[in-house]
């Protein structure tokens, strides 16, 4: 079967295996079919040699977290993420991957009202203690949604004005992170326009699931809705997806848009002096790098730059940025593997003995919180330091 992968890109892997230890699923299974090298060999077998799409071959593709930790490990620069995205899309189009229920489950992401109704229903279920843990929702789902308002200083002379991308699930489940991000930006004299319903969803989860048409439609919608200004993103997964629109759509407008997308820490790092000088929060904080910040956007150092003036002790994890297993919807779709991968991460966190773990991605935060780890977004930490609110 033609997976529509560019033959030259597919041919780039020399099968050296240097990627294996950077792959979370290989780490917990020791199994070649759960490794990047193995998955690429299977893509070749399917596309070049017409190997049959057995359940085991589909499983090998389906169990990839798409963390892309293998990419920085690859000396030949194999674009693994793009290979896997092409594969998923070809197999989803073919009906082999991403069953109908999953496609329907992703539909409401673009419908803020439906998401809010759903969240309220889940919040009620949570309070009645009938919400399944497997959904991985945060422990304090809000009953009501409060949309953020634009700063009063938008377009005031001498003020930088930026979009703050609020997204879909994160907006209804964790809007307090966005609120903290907006306060931090305002404290740095930056005016903020929260995107709210202007730009409801980035399409990252659709890309992961191989639903390319949906992902491209989301991208077109955002590009039309958010002109000119810098677009700041406080979710590493969304930011990585939006920075990839240039590749996804292959248009000039998309490339121009992607060049304006910044992770919020990345954008703030060179402006950290604009933030007020305050007492450091007396905590020991471990930085957990979301994969799409470290391996895809590769701007994870910025998180340290912005946190350093505000917390007493910053510590590193010793696992070389290995994935935590969250992977967008992965922790819901592959709970066993996601759980095993998380155990490794929790062990690394335990070795670092932090009071708090700072993670710049909502999926990682929720997944780790599910294992009892106390997580917080870097923006919430800085916000707490500036406003002198106890954590």
């Amino acid at each position: 079967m033609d997976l529509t992968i560019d033959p030259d890109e597919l041919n780039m892997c020399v099968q050296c295996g240097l990627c294996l230890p950077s792959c979370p699923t290989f780490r917990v299974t020791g199994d070649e079919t759960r490794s990047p090298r193995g998955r690429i060999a299977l893509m070749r077998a399917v596309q070049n040699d017409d190997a049959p799409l057995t359940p085991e071959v589909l499983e090998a593709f389906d169990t990839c977290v798409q963390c892309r930790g293998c990419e920085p490990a690859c000396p030949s620069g194999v674009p693994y993420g793009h290979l896997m995205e092409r594969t998923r899309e070809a197999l989803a189009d073919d009906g082999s991957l991403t069953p109908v229920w999953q496609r329907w489950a992703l539909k409401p992401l673009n419908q803020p009202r439906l998401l809010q109704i759903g969240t309220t229903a889940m919040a009620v279920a949570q309070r009645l203690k009938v919400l399944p843990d497997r959904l991985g929702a945060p422990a304090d789902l809000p009953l009501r949604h409060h949309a953020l308002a634009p700063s009063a200083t938008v377009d005031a002379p001498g003020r930088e004005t930026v979009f703050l991308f609020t997204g879909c699930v994160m907006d209804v489940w964790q809007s307090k992170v966005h609120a903290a991000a907006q306060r931090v930006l305002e404290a740095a004299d930056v005016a903020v326009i929260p995107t709210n319903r202007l730009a409801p969803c980035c399409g990252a989860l659709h890309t992961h699931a191989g639903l390319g048409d949906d992902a491209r439609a989301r991208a077109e919608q955002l590009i039309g809705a958010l002109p000119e200004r810098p677009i700041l993103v406080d979710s590493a997964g969304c930011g990585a997806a939006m920075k990839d629109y240039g590749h996804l759509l292959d248009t000039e407008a998309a490339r121009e848009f992607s060049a304006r997308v910044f992770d919020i820490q990345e954008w703030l790092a060179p402006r950290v002096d604009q933030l007020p000088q305050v007492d450091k929060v007396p905590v020991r904080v471990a930085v957990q790098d979301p994969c799409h910040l470290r391996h895809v956007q590769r701007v994870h150092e910025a998180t340290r730059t912005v946190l350093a003036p505000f917390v007493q002790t910053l510590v590193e994890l010793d696992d070389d940025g290995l994935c935590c297993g969250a992977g967008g919807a992965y922790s819901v779709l592959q709970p066993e593997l996601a759980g095993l991968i998380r155990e490794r991460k929790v062990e690394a966190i335990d070795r670092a003995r932090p009071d708090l773990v700072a993670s710049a991605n909502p999926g990682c935060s929720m997944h780790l919180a599910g294992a009892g780890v106390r997580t917080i977004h870097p923006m919430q930490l800085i916000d707490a330091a500036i406003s002198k609110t106890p954590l």
Partner: protein
Amino acid sequence: MTDELEDELRRALPATQVRGSRIRRRRGSDAGRSRVRTDSAERALLRRDASVFDGGVAGPVCFPETAAEVQAIVRIANAHGRAIVPRGAGTGLAGGAIPLGAPIVIALTRMNRILEVDTINRVAWVEPGVINLDLSKYLRPMGYHFAPDPSSQQVCTIGGNLANNSGGPHCLAYGVTDTHIIATEVVLPSGDIVMLGGLDPEPDGLDLRGAFVGGEGTLGIATKIAVRLTKNPPAVRTLLLSFGHVADAANTVSAVIAAGIVPAAMEVMDQRITIAVENYVHAGYPIDAAAVLLAEVEGLEGGVQIDADRIGEIGRAHGATDVRLAASDRERALLWKGRKTAFGAIAQIKPDYYLHDTVVPRAKLAEVLAQVYEIADRHELLVMNVFHAGDGNLHPLLIFDGREPGVLDRVHEAGAEIVRASLAAGGVLSGEHGIGVEKQAYMSEQFSDDDLDHQNRLRQSFDPHCRSNPGKVIPMGHSCADIQALRRVPTGVWG
């Protein structure tokens, strides 16, 4: 019969054992799937390691987690007259782990626990699937490391290091893997479990440990390994020397050793590979130099500075155009990352490589290198040289695009000539990658018939039926029992 074999293996390796796991499991879930794999995807992937050789078809693939389970698999294989092949991370470059004759593949990746560390006696017990670099990272806070550091150390396993008696850049000063294996528990091809070597400084009796290390899986399977711990050096200096000619770099290496300095490592890369590597790591490697020499000295603060200065002087006297001292640990780490990922970087130029591993006397390095370039030119192939210069261990990489018709024949012809040129210069077939299937045919050019017959007798005393990794190392003419094991394959069953 096949179903019976699978059933027996499945009973020996019950599903779902992912050790230490706290999570719940569901039927049919990924984590809880069988540890005996017979599907076509798994078997197809395990036909290959990191070499260009394509094996036959892997039989059932087993993922044992204890020595007792390895023993059970070996006994079941014996009862069914089937061969076995052990496998670690699959980074071998000589085809040592590829399946010949539908063997049962024993993947040791899940036996990856560090069992015990004793810093007073400087020994650690580990399972064979522990990744080399994971062990050194684990030991770092205690001030120790495992000295053999193959370029693939971020992924290769201690079991694989033991099987191939692997080397690495720092083996120049510290010796190869053999020096660092104190004892090992082995499941013999008969299914018996024995301990070879011991923690005593001078174990009594014949040194069977020494015979077993480097056995490439033909003598049995190591299931527990006592490794020697090496103290981390108090001071390190890393130098990068640039040269206008590859020969100047090679001659510098000989001159350094001749001057009585034994650096911890001396590595040379030629221009083509340096460009590819620099493009990946951005360590500041000079891309306009014909060759670079990466030299490292370790020891006490006063001594390393003197040695580093002298290496710089010797380099300049031999035509070095630039001598740079790594200014920080970060720079040093980046330089090493570049050197150690060199093989993997070649797809930037061509998608396939065939890597040789001959060793020549240091004084002949420049001469043999010139022949290597000449041979590649004659066969219209690109060659890149990256090598453990201090040991005289060459790693010429013939790079090509396997889709080009006839190219693989030219690669094999050029490879054979490189091997012969190395042997003619007084060298040997393999520095550290092992013989596997790759260099089997050349064994008779290095060893006499009597040599090979005696090697085979040692092998048969461990494995009388030649069922442990058959078809490897000892050439066929000297190992007729292997042919029987390979013929005994139930043909068609696994196709």
